[in-house]
């Protein structure tokens, strides 16, 4: 894909993140113009104006290939490759007399190679389908399809049955399904068919997922939905029959059949809840709200008169944006994503909704999103292309040399009327050999030469590499050490293109939340009424304690019980998810004895009421779980529940709590009348809720970020401010997320006035309604009374510090890009050993007093200018600090905040910034937005030219993952969005260590070796042909029989090299992890740099020279056996070919590091296969075998000279390489050589003790080295 369009696409995606809510005015202006041209005639799809629009139907097909288009489509894909086109042309030419060998022998390998590639494509496609919601397939299909089968859809059943006959891959699940259907089915006519199918299905079991996927599509296309018909009632129809403009009714727990505009719901105010699991993997419920204008259309009668027109954007992939206008009742209403229900999400907690179909089928947002991740190619592969070009040039060069000589020789054949080589009959010849037209003959010969030396271009290289990569992926997927028991997730390589790139990663850019941490929020501490509660010790605190020399670290100030932190988990019966709060002072209802019991009560009431979570009662256990918008919120509700304020139910207008009555000590139910929710937005950074309690008090309960909350406190509400601020600071230092809790009582009058204003704002139809609502909300969120603050911990994932340490030892630079506060980020940095003691921190921030002062003045330009200057200055300072300490062993950590980052990423500054950053051991960017993350990734990728790897788990990391050379998704809590756009998916951050150091290293090594070897073996072979040509007056006669040649790449040399690519290991996994520095072989690309590639190539040329000249000199011209026979063309071909097969296979045996039975089998088997082939092929009739007839059995095998020559040639050809390696291992060993030898000597046990120290020194050397290379 051309880079330009890809970039464009990316920014498009980023845009959707940065502007969640594009301002209406701007976008709505564009309606009707390009990109915003869709017109939907609601409830009137047969409108004469709607018909010519001809939007796509709701039919979907998600497979890349179908049974029908598979062959042509995949063939087309194949011939998009230059090399394959070359081979295709060659194949065509082979039918002409130009061909040096027969057409079948040219076509056969091409067919084998392309066939193998196509099969591989098929398998890949199949695998891709498998990973697409395979779980859903089993559960979803089994349930819904059986349900549907009960309704006995004849067509559906027949289709199923038919499919099982067509595709022999109908398998157990379908068999089960059908047998279920069988028992439920009341259509006797189908039953025999079904029985038959069940039998058939149980006999044949292959290709299950493929069938299942098709099956899923068919299933989806045939689902039923209620559509408003002409007779003004709802009738059932199939999904695939839906048209744009149709009015549909969707019931609870049903999927939306297309992208709908929400008109109204069973709730009066037109809200509904949706689960978007299939879109972004998030399990929490999302609230959608219809326009006020339409929410009254709640029955079939009122719908009768409903007609409207929607003008909106064209289909696109942005899930979170929608721009449109509704023309209804002569008025215009702006539409936002709030009113759009997306296909594949599910209606929850709402009885039914009415909606208008806006996008159908492949136009829906989910389908638009279902594109493959941008295709990425590894550096090695890109370089390989260059090498192929080099080989192409070589090919052209030697072909033209050959044709020049040929032309001269041909021209000379007729000289002054006499025929020189009369035996060629130059007087009566075709154009190809015509001395009178020697230059034309010479040109045509050039084409012959291209074919003849075509063996220089390894025809099977691409397919071999792809096969190898697929197998490597299987090894990655199968690695038990990357399997995560808790979520039952193994590692998953989603693309096979980038395996070797894993071995060359220079910089890792990591998300923090959910990647380094678990993203399961735990309520650990709180500060109420100026008293700190919660005695647990966070990991960060432990790390901090360690960093400060094991001095007990006091968080609570007054209370230090460091010893309690490991004991306290034992006494607390069972652990509760999201709750890790231990403090006997307020737990188990003891809070009533605390001095500020009333404040504590208020505190937990706020936690229990002020949220948007939905309780979910488990009928069996009676336990309540919560579905919340964010894990933080869930943690609060759970904490409140655990402390005796159980939120157990809610309606549209009320919130129900079980509370502990402090006076009686009993549990009572309290009802709070819910009046208003002032929602959380990232700009407001707070949420509030207005309720009326049983005492008829009006309360505004509020929670929010400290930065916005403290300024909203009333004068008398600041009693605990200083202590709370102190605590919040400490919590942040301890790596906790904090929120401030406050409340206020409202007067009835005040409320009434405000409510009026608020309702007006809410119902206003102007474009800036949101801003208006926010402004009104802001009016009442004032004069709050501070209650306290909460602190939730996002725990570090297991093994993160160790993993980061290992990666750092391997010379990989790690950048953390997080949205957190600087303090939190820095402390997490310490906790995960990203920042270490003794590291000098360079901090770049704009939180300086003068900038803030400027900001208050509101002069944006001045602020920008000052900020820019400030950042520049800070970067320069850091740079000078760095260079002054260059020779010291001090390493640096760079911390930069989001605001500064914006300026640092400015064109003028980015190089300076990059220069500073790459010289720091670790970099932390705080408060960075998704867009910034992607931009930083891009800067590193382009700026350093090194391989970057981005790792993240959330939707906000998608841009980063796609921008980086390799995107690794963590299949964690935040859903599948990141995973779906990643190249590799792992369950835990710590698996990155194994993925890179073991699999990456191996794959890099394997692929690099494999490509080098491929070139070597083909050059060796190709050049023997060339040398022979020199002795055949360049006439284009190959030295070998046609079929020997076509089998060369396919049978005699391919399997060992594939075995190399799949299995070779220089050192075992254990040693890879033990000596992480080994990884630098990949980063510095020592196995695939030009000297090495050219080295292998010249080795090939030298080998071919030795093979050709030693063979010819040994067996010519004397008798080669005792009975006086001499060597002719046939014997010579076999003798030389034997040497080539032996040499390249033995070369393989010499170069690999790992001999299992597989390698032995393939290498020696290939050689044996050659002899077997000769015997078998030689026993065919002479017209088939031609020059190979009985050649081994009769002529060669009885000749001692033949065997002696083979031995001589093979040993002398391998001698240069062997000596080179012997000297290299002795005098300039590579890193893996050393490790291998140490392992052999059993000396690695003592090495491990002093390794880290030495590694530090080596790392330093390495950096110096790199710096020299860069400059």
């Amino acid at each position, binding site marked *: 894909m051309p880079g330009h369009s890809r970039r464009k696409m990316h920014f498009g995606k980023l845009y959707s993140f940065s502007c969640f809510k594009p301002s209406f005015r701007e976008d709505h202006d564009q309606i009707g113009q390009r990109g915003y041209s869709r017109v939907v005639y609601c409830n009137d799809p047969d409108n004469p104006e709607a018909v010519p629009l001809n939007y796509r139907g709701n039919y979907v097909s998600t497979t890349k290939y179908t049974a029908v288009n598979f062959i042509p489509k995949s063939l087309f894909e194949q011939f998009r490759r230059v090399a394959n086109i070359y081979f295709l042309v060659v194949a065509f030419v082979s039918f002409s007399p130009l061909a040096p060998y027969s057409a079948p022998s040219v076509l056969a390998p091409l067919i084998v190679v392309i066939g193998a590639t196509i099969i591989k494509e098929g398998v890949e496609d199949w695998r891709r389908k498998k990973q697409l919601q395979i779980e859903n397939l089993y559960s979803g299909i089994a349930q819904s399809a059986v349900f549907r089968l009960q309704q006995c859809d004849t067509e559906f059943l027949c289709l199923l049955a038919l499919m099982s006959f067509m595709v022999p891959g109908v398998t157990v699940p379908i068999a089960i399904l059908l047998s279920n259907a069988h028992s439920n089915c009341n259509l006797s006519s189908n039953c025999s068919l079904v029985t038959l199918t069940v039998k058939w299905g149980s006999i044949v079991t292959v290709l299950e997922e493929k069938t299942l996927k098709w099956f899923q599509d068919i299933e989806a296309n045939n689902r039923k939905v209620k559509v408003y018909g002409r007779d003004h009632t709802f009738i059932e129809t199939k999904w695939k029959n839906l048209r744009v403009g149709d009015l549909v009714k969707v019931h609870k727990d049903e999927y939306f059949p297309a992208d709908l505009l929400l008109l109204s719901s069973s709730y009066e105010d037109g809200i509904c809840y949706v689960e978007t699991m299939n879109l972004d993997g998030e399990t929490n419920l999302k609230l959608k709200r219809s326009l006020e204008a339409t929410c009254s259309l709640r029955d079939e009668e009122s719908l009768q008169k409903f007609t409207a027109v929607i003008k909106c954007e064209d289909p696109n992939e942005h899930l979170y944006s929608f721009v449109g206008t509704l023309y209804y009742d002569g008025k215009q209403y702006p539409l936002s994503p709030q009113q759009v229900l997306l296909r594949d999400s599910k209606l929850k907690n709402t009885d039914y909704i009415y909606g208008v179909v806006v996008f159908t089928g492949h136009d829906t947002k989910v389908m638009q999103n279902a594109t493959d991740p941008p295709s990425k190619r590894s550096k090695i592969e890109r370089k390989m292309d260059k090498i192929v070009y080099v080989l192409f040039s070589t090919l052209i060069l030697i072909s033209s040399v050959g044709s020049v000589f040929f032309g001269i020789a041909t021209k000379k054949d007729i000289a002054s009327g006499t025929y020189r080589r009369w035996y060629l009959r130059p007087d009566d010849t075709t154009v190809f050999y015509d001395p009178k037209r020697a230059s034309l003959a010479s040109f045509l010969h050039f084409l012959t030469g291209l074919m003849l030396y075509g063996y220089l271009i390894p025809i099977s290289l691409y397919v071999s590499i792809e096969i190898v990569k697929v197998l490597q992926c299987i090894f990655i997927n199968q690695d038990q050490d990357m399997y995560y028991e808790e979520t039952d997730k193994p590692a998953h390589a989603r693309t096979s293109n980038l395996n070797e790139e894993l071995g060359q990663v220079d910089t890792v850019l990591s998300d923090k939340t959910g990647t380094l941490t678990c993203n399961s929020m735990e309520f650990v501490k709180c500060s109420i009424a100026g008293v700190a509660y919660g005695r647990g010790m966070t990991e960060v605190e432990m790390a901090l304690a360690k960093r400060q020399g094991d001095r007990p670290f006091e968080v609570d100030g007054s209370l230090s019980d460091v010893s309690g932190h490991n004991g306290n988990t034992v006494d607390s019966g069972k652990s509760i998810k999201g709750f890790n709060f231990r403090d006997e002072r307020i737990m188990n209802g003891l809070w009533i004895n605390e001095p500020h019991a009333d404040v504590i009560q208020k505190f937990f009431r706020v936690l229990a009421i002020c949220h948007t979570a939905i309780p979910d009662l488990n009928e069996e256990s009676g336990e309540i779980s919560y579905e919340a918008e964010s894990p933080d919120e869930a943690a609060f509700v759970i904490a409140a529940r655990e402390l005796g304020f159980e939120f157990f139910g809610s309606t549209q207008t009320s919130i129900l709590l079980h509370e502990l009555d402090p006076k009686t000590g009993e549990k009572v139910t309290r009802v709070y009348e819910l009046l208003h929710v002032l929602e959380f937005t990232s700009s407001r950074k707070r949420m509030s809720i207005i309720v009326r309690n049983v005492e008829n008090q009006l309360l505004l309960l509020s929670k929010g970020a400290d930065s916005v909350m403290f300024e909203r406190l009333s004068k008398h509400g600041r009693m605990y401010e200083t202590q709370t601020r102190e605590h919040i600071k400490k919590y942040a230092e301890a790596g906790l997320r904090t929120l401030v809790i406050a409340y206020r009582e409202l007067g009835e009058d005040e409320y009434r006035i405000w409510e009026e204003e608020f309702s007006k704002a809410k119902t206003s139809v102007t474009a800036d309604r949101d801003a208006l609502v926010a402004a009104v909300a802001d009016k009442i969120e004032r004069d709050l009374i501070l209650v306290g603050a909460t602190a939730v911990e996002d725990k570090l994932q297991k093994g993160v510090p160790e993993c980061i340490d290992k990666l750092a030892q391997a010379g990989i630079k790690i950048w953390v890009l997080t949205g957190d506060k600087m303090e939190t980020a820095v402390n997490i940095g310490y906790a995960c050993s990203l920042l270490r003691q003794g590291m000098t921190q360079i901090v770049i921030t704009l939180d300086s007093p003068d900038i803030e002062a400027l900001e208050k003045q509101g002069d944006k330009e001045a602020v920008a200018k000052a900020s820019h200057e400030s950042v520049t200055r800070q970067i320069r300072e850091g740079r000078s600090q760095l260079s002054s300490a260059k020779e010291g062993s001090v390493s640096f950590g760079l911390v930069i905040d989001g605001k500064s980052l914006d300026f640092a990423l400015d064109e003028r500054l980015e190089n300076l910034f990059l220069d500073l950053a790459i010289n720091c051991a670790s970099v932390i960017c705080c408060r960075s937005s998704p867009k910034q993350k992607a931009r930083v990734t891009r800067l590193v990728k382009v700026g350093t030219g090194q391989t970057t790897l981005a790792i993240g788990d959330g939707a906000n990391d998608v841009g980063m993952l796609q921008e980086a050379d390799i995107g690794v998704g963590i299949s964690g809590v935040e859903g599948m969005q990141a995973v779906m756009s990643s190249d590799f998916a792992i369950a835990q951050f710590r698996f990155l260590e194994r993925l890179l150091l073991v699999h990456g290293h191996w794959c890099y090594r394997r692929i690099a070796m494999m490509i080098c070897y491929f070139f070597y073996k083909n050059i060796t072979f190709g050049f023997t042909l060339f040398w022979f040509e020199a002795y055949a007056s360049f006439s284009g006669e190959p030295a070998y029989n046609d079929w020997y040649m076509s089998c060369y790449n396919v049978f005699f040399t391919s399997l060992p090299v594939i075995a190399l690519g799949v299995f070779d290991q220089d050192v075992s996994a254990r040693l890879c992890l033990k000596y992480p520095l080994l990884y630098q072989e990949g980063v510095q690309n020592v196995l695939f740099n030009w000297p090495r590639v050219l080295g292998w190539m010249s080795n090939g040329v030298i080998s071919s020279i030795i093979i050709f000249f030693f063979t010819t000199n040994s067996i010519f011209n004397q*008798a080669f056996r005792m009975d006086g026979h001499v060597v002719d063309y046939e014997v010579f071909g076999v003798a030389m070919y034997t040497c080539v097969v032996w040499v390249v296979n033995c070369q393989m045996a010499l170069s690999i590091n790992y001999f299992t039975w597989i390698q032995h089998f393939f290498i020696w088997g290939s050689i044996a296969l050659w002899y077997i082939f000769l015997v078998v092929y030689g026993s065919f009739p*002479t017209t088939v075998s031609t020059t190979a007839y009985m050649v081994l059995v009769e002529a060669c095998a009885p000749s001692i000279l033949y065997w002696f020559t083979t031995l001589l040639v093979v040993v002398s050809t391998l001698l240069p390489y062997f000596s080179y390696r012997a000297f290299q291992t002795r005098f300039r060993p590579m890193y893996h050589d050393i490790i291998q030898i140490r392992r052999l000597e059993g000396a690695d046990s003592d090495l491990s003790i002093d390794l880290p120290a030495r590694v530090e020194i080596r790392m330093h050397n390495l950096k110096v080295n790199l710096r020299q290379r860069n400059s």
Partner: protein
Amino acid sequence: MMSSNTASSSSGNAGSADSSANRRTSKRPKYSRFTQQELPACKPILTPKWVITVFLLVSIVFIPIGVASLFASRDVVEIVDRYETECIPPANRTNKVGFIQSSADKTCNRTIKVTKRMKQPIYIYYQLDNFYQNHRRYVKSRSDSQLKDPKSASDTSACDPEGTLNGTVPIVPCGLIAWSLFNDSYSFSRNNNETLTVNKKEISWKSDRDHKFGKAVFPKNFQNGTLIGGASLNESIPLSEQEDLIVWMRTAALPTFRKLYGKIETDLNPNDEVRVILENNYNTYSFNGKKKLVLSTTSWLGGKNDFLGIAYLTVGGLCFFLALLFTVVYLVKPRRLGDPSYLSWNRNPGGR
């Protein structure tokens, strides 16, 4: 060079096996040495000991073979007589091509002196030079089916321009190879008129006689065209018995080649004078090709060629030298290869 290593088996497996067994649809990858890439393997490492051993081993094997080959080659007696110029009357030497194409008498007498005793069988070869039997046009110009099967006589598509006579009647055997059949002939006598019989039977490959050239295929229309290439064939003898043709049809790989002409099944003694009556018919003069008559005995290794022996000795000697070199290096600087001071990226580790 080899050291066997049994890979350590996974330890993390046993502990969690129970829990995963409970889970019905666990996606835990199954353990096998194969999938975990822990197959038992040899890991060849080039330690000095192994390097020296390998070099020594090669030299120990190669030097004896070299000596034996050299002896075998020395045992062979080979007499080469180049005659292409000598057999043209001095008057015609300015226009050799003209002479060879004329109908003049081309008989020529040569005398060969035997220097060493030659045990029978003595193989007679003719050696041509600068003759491209491996030219693509030439090699392809034959019809295997026609040679084999009398019914395929008209299968001459590959044989142009020697496929058919006047475009109608197929030529058997067709093609340039057969057409240019060598037609010099030699007869031998020793020490004044003791005729040496030349056995021309079994000079070709048996498989050729039995399978490639049919017993029922007889030459037809051969050399009847306007241009006559080389020898003509007796039309009453089947192709399978035309051994000169069979030998010739096995094309040579290089432009200089020998072909078997016959065998003398009498021992020749030193100082014997062999007189050769030679019909010098074949035109190599157009392309300046040499013609040589070769008489040679064979050893167990075949004919006379010192190259193999010398090459074996050279390679064997080189390996011995390298083994010595390594030993010296190893003795002088016995630094351990696993020396950690090598663990550095400072030097640029390039190359293979």
